[in-house]
């Protein structure tokens, strides 16, 4: 049995999407000068409401919409406490994560009447879309066809984020606010507004990321199912130096770790070691690249 083949790469593309989407969200807040450890909680809320949306409406796209709306609300809550109240971004971020875990578990009991996890075979997940021409190309077809709309969407968002960040006036404002809020403010840029937009964009992307986890990769919600992906995405932001194309590369690396972790199950290696792989890979990347944290919270700057 070969470990490295097209199926592994297809699985990588599927599994790296949540990391990529959340990391792109983290990129916007990082560019606005906010150290955002709340990606995890925003994703988790997205995962829950994606499943709840499908449960209530029967339509996976409405589930997706609900996931985005809910995660954006949580992101704005984070934004309010960090931007308006000027609380410590790390503490507020951790509070968001604790809130997300408690709230989703609470709501799971209320909505589905279960604890631990909710699975129902009649729940309809996001359908896989087959790409007309690409699917017939030998390796690329296996890799890049038959994915959910979120996988294709993530690649499109990378391009859009690049254009937005470097070729749009708002992107310029965003970067200016992140580098020096006072200077940006004196130039007439509305600093708080820019920061709120960055936080909202982060929420939208984390909602998409959460939906990819809960109504595409699988169709179920499990307590705390993000399992550190928000933090891995945060590392992808730092490793990718808050640049969309570099973040794509970083996320691919972590996606490969997740895919390898799935593939190595059942060939004799204890499951616990296999499950460690993404976390170990992330730590190794952190240490090897000796990256500097972009730790400039709003509070420190103002």
């Amino acid at each position, binding site marked *: 049995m070969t470990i490295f083949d097209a199926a592994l790469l297809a699985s990588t593309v599927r599994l790296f999407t949540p990391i990529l989407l959340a990391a792109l969200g983290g990129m916007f807040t990082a560019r606005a000068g906010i150290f955002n450890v709340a990606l995890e909680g925003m994703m988790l809320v997205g995962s829950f409401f994606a499943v709840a949306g499908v449960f209530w409406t029967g339509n996976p796209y409405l589930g997706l919409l609900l996931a985005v709306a809910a995660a954006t609300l949580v992101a704005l809550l984070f934004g309010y*406490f960090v931007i308006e109240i000027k609380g410590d971004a790390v503490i507020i971020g951790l509070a968001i994560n604790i809130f997300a875990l408690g709230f989703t578990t609470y709501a799971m009991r209320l909505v589905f009447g279960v604890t631990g996890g909710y699975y129902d075979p009649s729940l309809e997940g996001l359908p896989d879309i087959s790409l007309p021409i690409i699917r017939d190309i030998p390796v690329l077809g296996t890799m890049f066809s038959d994915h959910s709309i979120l996988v294709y969407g993530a690649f499109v968002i990378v391009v859009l984020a690049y254009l937005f960040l470097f070729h749009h006036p708002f992107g310029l404002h965003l970067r200016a606010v992140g580098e020096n809020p006072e200077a940006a403010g004196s130039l007439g840029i509305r600093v708080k507004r820019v920061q709120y937009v960055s936080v909202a964009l982060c929420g939208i992307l984390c909602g998409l990321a959460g939906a990819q986890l809960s109504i595409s990769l699988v169709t179920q919600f499990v307590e705390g199912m993000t399992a550190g992906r928000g933090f891995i995405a945060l590392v992808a932001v730092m490793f990718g130096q808050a640049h969309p194309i570099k973040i794509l590369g970083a996320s691919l690396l972590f996606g490969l770790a997740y895919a390898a972790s799935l593939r190595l199950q059942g060939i004799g290696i204890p499951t616990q070691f296999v499950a460690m792989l993404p976390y170990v890979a992330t730590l190794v990347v952190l240490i090897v690249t000796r990256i500097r944290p972009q730790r400039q919270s709003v509070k420190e700057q103002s």
Partner: protein
Amino acid sequence: MSMSADSPAKTQRIPSALIPILVVLILTIMALLIGAVAVAIAGKSPLLAIEELIRGAVGTRNNIAATLTRSIPIVICGLAATVGFKAGLFNLGLEGQMVVGALASAVTANALQGLPAIVLLPVTILAGCAAGALLALPAAWWQTRFNVPLIISTLLLNYIAVLFVSYLVNNPLRDLSGGAAVPQTVMIPEAIRFGVILSGTRLHAGIFALLILPPLLAWIFRRTRLGYQLRMTGLNPDFAAYGGISVQRMTLLAMAASGALAGLAGAVQVLGVDFRFIDNSLTAGGYAWTGFIAAILAQANPALVVVTGLFLAGLEVGAAGMQRNTQIPLQIADIVQAGIIFMIAVRQRVGQWLRHILLSEQRS
């Protein structure tokens, strides 16, 4: 609100020292209100919920004992987080450190069970502390040497440590004699188990740690050179380095101490409650995270950690009782805890507002 224009009131009937305490009280009540809203959303009566919650936490002798028992690992973890806070560090790896500490103490106790209890007990406790410290140290080293943010490395190490320990207790260290469904180690020798101090309950001698550790830590922070250096590092690393303090050494020391305390919490749980290491029993309890919140709520004051730890333990035990009697999910406790942290973020605003109201009342 123009606070700065206020002239100092000459006849303050309410001393301003009380204001911080009033602020914490008000914030806690506001956080409980958030919980009440969540209960109302569930279509239940918030008043009933609070009544059941209080009854569950302190309503009977047994419930009080349960709250006290639960507060032991929470307070010790809170003290572990406090040591980190003092040095300006966020040790998010308490959970992993607690779990490796628990396993190390269970394994040590069983491996050396021939030793007399008077020797074996301290060795067992030290093994737990050492394991916790060993897991915390690499993160400190990576931060000082490679600029790896501690807050991320400690969090990732949690997953790795919990999985590794789970592997050990599922395979080489698993007790196969009893045929228990849950992976667990062999029970530790009876001679070193903590005794129950309130008959008919599970409240064990580990509660004395709550009386010994906070004064000890407060003394180290306030009265010793090392404590001073730690605090300076936390307040302003650049200034500390300028004053000749090695920030690297302080970071390593603070993380080792923090990890050791988290490991101690694990050891105490093995010695006093489980009498063996049981897979997932500590992570499912959520002690480490609650301890972290207790430390935030106590503003890194060791004595206050006991108060906040007891309060949060009561909240969780009470919520479990409330779930049994009212079907309101016990996770309401987590929502209230998150609410408390949000409220802490707004505390300065509330403090300003309170001072404003109190002072203007006294003037009129």
